[in-house]
Structures are given as structure tokens and as C-alpha cells.
């Protein structure tokens, strides 16, 4: 069986169809990119997988477990983490608190134990802090550790969001336009990190991205969507050369 399987997925808002009959599979350990023109339904796919939207048809399974039956706040426990197209960080909190929030799904003791600061709660806190420091090292954001997120440059905020997603210790990471708004140098760093996340941490990555050079560099397979359905699927070179893709992008 496939690792992540999207089967005959449909999504409608009133009369508007965002996704129609979409099917694809992602294998464990690969970097899978979704491209397509604006309004093709790419982010909607993420929103269905992370249970923001209820699909009107079809299903999504991760390791044969039906995701569409999991409540929204248990998605992180299922091992799925994501970033957002328009950064959704906790603006007033510091970088370290944002990352510690990423570890929310791991128990830190009940509220009473926290209020009394029992040793068990302290140990859990220390453990989380240690894990978060590992991620800070990996993504090289230690200079910003104690700064509030609101004042950080855009590129750093993007990285902090990825770091926060990693803090949930996911097995599947969904990146929604990770390179948008980054300069070429930051994009190159991002490519290395994506490789690291895939090879060193063994995390499967699905990403929505417009930057074709980044996609060509890191993606193992590419899905091109249009009008909520599959336009082309294959290696980056195949998809880029596919006549329908060329037509959709150039509007021929």
C-alpha cells in the first residue's frame, strides 16, 4: 500500500468546486511537489489533509489509516505537520515559545501539576527544551531564540514556521509555498534544509511551490494541478515538458 493516498477527493464550497476527483499517492521518504496555476486547488489539498476543510467526496489515508475520520486537533498526533502560505506564527510569543508550542502534543503533565510545578512537569519542560534546541541548531536560528516573532525579518519567520512544524516530530511535513518571499540565497538554504529533513530526519515532505528551480532541485516527483484535478504527474523533467502543463502555464 502507498504511504499517503488521496483517493477521488472532491471539495466544494457552495457552487464552487475547488477539487474534483483528485487521486495521487506519495511514497514514504520522498519529496513530493504540487505545482499549478493560482486557484488550482493546491492549498485546498493541504487544508483537506490537515482537516481544515471537510471533503465532499473521496478520502485520504496515511499508512492505511483514514485521516478524514480524525478530529482536527489530532492531526498533529497522527504525525502530520504543516506550514502556511501566509505565515501563521504566534506573533507575540518568542521564537523559543513558538517552537515549544510545536511540542504541545507531547504531555507536559496535567494543569494542576504545572500550576504546582511538580518535578514531573519540570522534567517534561526540560526535555521539550532540549528537543527544541536540536531543531534550532539544525535550522540555524539560534540568534533569534529569544526574540518575539513579530519583529523578525520575513525569511526568518518562514524558517521559524518550518522549525515549529518540525518540533511536532512529524513523519509527514506539508510545506505551503516555503520559498515565496525568500531571496535567492534564502531559497538555496531552504533547498539544503529540505534535503536534510528528508535524509537525516527521514520525514516525507509534500510541498506546494511555484519556484520551479527549487522544485527541480529537491522534488522526487511532481504533481501539476489545474482546475482542481491532475494535469500531469511524474519526475520534475517530465512534468515540465508535458504539453498540457506548458499549455496551462502559457495559457495557449
Amino acid at each position, binding site marked *: 500500500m502507498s504511504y499517503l493516498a488521496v483517493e477521488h477527493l472532491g471539495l466544494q464550497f457552495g457552487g464552487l468546486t475547488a477539487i474534483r476527483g483528485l487521486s495521487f499517492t506519495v511514497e514514504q521518504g520522498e519529496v513530493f511537489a504540487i505545482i499549478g496555476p493560482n486557484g488550482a486547488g493546491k492549498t485546498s489539498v493541504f487544508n483537506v489533509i*490537515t482537516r*481544515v476543510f471537510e471533503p465532499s467526496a473521496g478520502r485520504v489515508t496515511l499508512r492505511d489509516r483514514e485521516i478524514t475520520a480524525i478530529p*482536527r*486537533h*489530532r*492531526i*498533529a*498526533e497522527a504525525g502530520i*505537520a*504543516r506550514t*502556511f502560505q501566509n505565515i*501563521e*506564527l*504566534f*506573533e*507575540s*510569543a518568542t521564537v523559543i*515559545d513558538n517552537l*515549544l*508550542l*510545536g511540542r*504541545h*502534543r507531547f504531555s*507536559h*503533565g496535567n*494543569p494542576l501539576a*504545572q*500550576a*504546582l*510545578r511538580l518535578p514531573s*512537569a*519540570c522534567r*517534561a*519542560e*526540560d526535555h521539550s*527544551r*532540549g528537543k527544541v534546541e536540536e531543531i534550532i541548531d539544525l535550522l540555524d536560528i539560534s540568534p533569534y531564540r*529569544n526574540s518575539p516573532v513579530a519583529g523578525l525579518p520575513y525569511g526568518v519567520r518562514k524558517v521559524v514556521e518550518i522549525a*515549529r*512544524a518540525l518540533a*511536532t516530530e512529524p513523519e509527514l511535513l506539508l510545506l505551503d509555498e516555503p520559498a515565496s518571499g525568500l531571496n535567492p540565497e534564502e531559497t538555496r538554504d531552504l533547498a539544503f534544509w529540505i534535503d536534510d529533513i528528508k535524509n537525516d530526519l527521514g520525514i516525507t515532505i509534500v510541498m506546494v511551490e511555484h519556484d520551479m528551480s527549487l522544485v527541480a532541485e529537491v522534488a522526487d516527483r511532481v504533481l501539476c494541478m489545474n482546475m482542481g484535478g491532475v494535469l500531469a504527474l511524474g519526475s520534475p523533467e517530465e512534468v515540465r515538458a508535458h504539453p498540457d502543463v506548458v499549455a496551462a502555464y502559457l495559457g495557449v
Partner: protein
Amino acid sequence: MRFPYNTSYRDAQKLLRYRADWLAYGLLAAVLIAAPWILPRYYVGEATYIFIMCVASLGLMVVTGFTGQISFGHAAFVAIGAYTHTLLLTAGVPFIVSIILAGVFTGLIGLLVGLPAIRVSGLHLAMVTMAFAIIVEQIVGRWKSVTGGFTGIPVPPPRIFGFDLGAQKPFYFLCLAVLLAVLAALVNLLRGHAGRAFVGVRDSEAAALSLGIWIAGYKVLAFSISAGITGIAGALFAHHVQFVTPEGFSLLLSLELVIMVMIGGLGSLRGAVFGAVFISLLPTAISAMKPFLPDRVAGQFGLETFVFGLVLALFILFEPMGLNGRWLKLKSLFSAFPLYRKDTFRRGKTYMKSERYR
């Protein structure tokens, strides 16, 4: 300027890290302990009232400052706490059990009131809570067989293990002890896992959900904790007034509490305490000023209301971060002294961002 130098993760969690902190808080503790013997009688009572209001505003701060849910109805929780405690004491329940039960019961009511918070947010929630408070006020006034209606009921004096704490000095220390206990519990709760989750719910629901934070649960939890603490404040308040009547828990008290957390600075416990002290002292300050005002103004009924409004307006316009914000700015001014830049905290130009679709 100090640079944090941590050698273990525990270092970063310490509350009093520097000798200066120990000194400052030690001094504060000494003043608070000595106060009942130094201050005139009237001001000891006043200080006790301030401690009670601090507990209530800390309660409101949890829900408004940390999870960002606005409640215009916390007077209802003060009332529920006060009446529950009074009725339990009258029925012969010991003080400590009674005040805990009052807190727990109010917390449960808070749980029920918090349920709408799952569906409505922002000012809509403010309206729900306000409506709730108005209804509670009416119920308390009309349910004569239990609450005594508008004539009210007397409150038995607080007794712990046979000691009567109703006299002024013991009651002062009782309120101070409760305040410190509540403060300590909240400091621990809010700098840890639950506190971060509250802030997460406030700052971005979408992100909070994706991280596995059960938003509905945390919103209700915050409401419940907040109501419970406010209920404890209500129990102390009952002893303070010694005779509970519905008039003590009007919409005005709800709004006063909101003004406390607003003026204190949303999102900080220190702010809640600052705000409660400031607002509780304001009427005293106004009456102290009255001899210097022209008779035409001083003798009037609405002066206090006017000054309350004026102070709130000035804070919102010129110091939206509240007293706590001012405190932090002063601190950074002193710690960076010669290098302080005037514009460090200047706000940028802004335009209206719609919150209609949140």
C-alpha cells in the same frame, strides 16, 4: 545592561534570577508585612480590598489577556463565588472547604459560560458574557428564598481552626495569602505548557489547530480557571463587605475589572496587579482631590465615572500596552541608560485591518 548567561535549561526558567530581583521583591514583601502596623486603619481596609480586586483581575487576565477572549461579565462570577461561599458558611461548612468549593463551583459555571466561546469570539463573546452577567444580577435580586433578594444576607466571619480572622489585620493577611497563592499558581501555569497553549489560541487558531492544540478545550479551560479564581475573589469580597447584596455585583463591577486588565496591560500577570491597584485606588485619590476642586464639580455625583472614563481613554490612546508596558519601557530605559533611543517603542503608521472575517 544584563545578558542572560544560562548553563542549564532550568536557569532560563528561574523567576528571580538576579540579586537585584531578590532585593526588590524582598523589600516589597517587608513593606506588605509591616503595612498593617504602619498604615492608618482606613488604608489597611483599602489595601485588603485591593488584594481582593487583584485576585479578581488576575482571574479575568487569564481569559482576556492570555486566550484573548473578552468577558464583560466577570462580576457574575464574583457574585456566584460570594453567594456560594456565604451560603456554605451559613450552612456550617468550614472556611477552607467553603472557599475552595466556592471556587470550584464558580469554575463549573464558568465552564458552562465558556461553552459559547467555542462558537463566538471577540466582541460577540463580550456581549454574551455581558448578557449573562445582567441575567445573573436579576436572578440574584429575585431569588429571595436563597439570596435574600435586594435586602441581602449577612456573611459569617471567616474562621480557620477556631481562629477568627474577621478582624482587620488577620483578614489583611488572609487576603494577601490567597493573592500570593493564586499568583504563584498562575505564574507557573502560564509560563509552562498550558500558558503557551493559551497564547497560541489567542494568536493564531489555524496554527494552534495544526499543532494539535484542542482550541475548544483550551478556551473552555481558560474560562473555567478564570471563573474559579474570580469566584475565590468573590468569596473574600463577601467577607470584606460582610453583607452581600446584588448591588455589589452590577455591570459596573464587570467593566471595572475589564478596565483593570486593560490599563494594567493585556497578557501579563504583573499588569493585572498593577491595574487592580491603580483602579482600586482611583476613588480614594478622587475623594482626596475633592477639596482642591471647585465646589460645583467636587460635589457632583458623576465625577468618579468621568475620571474613570478619562483615565481609560488616555491609556488606550497613549499607552495601549498599559501600566505593564510603561514599566517595561522604564526598565529598558534604565538598563540601557545612555544608549536609549527615543523611538524604540514608537508605533508605525497603521490602517484599519478588518477583523470581520476572523
